[in-house]
């Protein structure tokens, strides 16, 4: 009788241990699956972040390309003969006149705000290189901000002096700030 009881107790203990092991197994599986899921989500978010940064850089580069196109084709400073615009040429007198208008309305005039909407956070200037190796620079527009980064675009251009009809080699320098 007592032997039977002992055997029964042993069976119960064995079954209980087996159940405990099984529970531990299940819990371990759940933990491992959760870890894998979490790792997967972290990796996915890192990849997404990479992708977004890549797009952000692309859009920043597109911005400076767009700005360069706008300035290059700006009717306010573009050379023209009668009504025909001359691409790749800047009229020095128009340039100086526009620079004066922008400077005079800085920082709270309507003209400055208008051109600020167009040019954004950037510095735009034209460097003129003369045959005697001297260089002069005319600043068209600037903003006073502390930039985190600068992207520079340089475009060779002709600078026309209308009074004398002389053309000088110039460089349109656009510095875009982030």
């Amino acid at each position, binding site marked *: 009788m007592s032997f039977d009881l002992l055997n029964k107790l042993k069976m119960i203990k064995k079954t209980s241990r087996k159940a405990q092991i099984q529970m531990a197994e299940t819990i371990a599986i759940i933990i491992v699956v959760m870890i894998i899921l979490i790792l997967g989500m972290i990796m996915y978010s890192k990849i997404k972040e990479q992708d977004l940064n890549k797009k952000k850089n692309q859009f920043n580069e597109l911005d400076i390309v767009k700005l360069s196109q706008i300035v290059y084709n700006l009717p306010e400073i573009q050379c023209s003969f009668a009504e025909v615009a001359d691409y790749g040429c800047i009229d020095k007198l128009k340039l100086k006149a526009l620079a004066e208008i922008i400077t005079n309305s800085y920082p709270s005039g309507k003209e400055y705000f208008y051109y600020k909407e167009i040019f954004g956070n950037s510095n735009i200037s034209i460097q003129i290189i003369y*045959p005697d190796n001297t260089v002069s620079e005319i600043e068209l527009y600037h903003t006073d901000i502390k930039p985190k980064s600068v992207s520079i675009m340089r*475009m*060779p251009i002709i600078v026309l002096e209308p009074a004398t009809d*002389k053309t000088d080699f*110039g460089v349109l320098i656009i510095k875009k700030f982030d």
Partner: protein
Amino acid sequence: MKKKNKAQMEIMGLVVIVVLVTLGFFFYIIFTAGKNNSSIKKDFEDDQLASNFVISFLKTDVGCKDYTIETLIQDCAGPSQNIECGGITSCDLIETLSQVYINNTLKKWGKDYNLTIEMPGSPVKESVSYERDCSASKYNVVSAWQPISLYPYKRTARVKLDICQ
């Protein structure tokens, strides 16, 4: 016992696969992080630089009467050189001015370039070239060129600029 061993081996196999896949993802992320992605600005900048430089270079006044660099090239490529500015011939002036404009632009900006002015039939110089680290076999090359008519002579001069990336 054999069945137990087989099941255990299977589990180990699965664990190895999971570990390998995870490592693979990590390496992928590390690899893509180091990659230089965008070149929209660079491609556009070099493309317009080459073409705008050539056009502006040719239209530039040399500060002597109404002559432009294009006029000097036409004179230098002709059978006789008639243009002289301050005692300097057209061919010498082309060399001097090319150096001025290249030094203040392409060289100053750290670009690798090859500017060639071809003047076939010129008794002085048939070709003038300025180069900086621009061997075509090494780099991607963005080129722009402009022909110059040498009328009434049946020849054409050419100005070519290669920007090496």
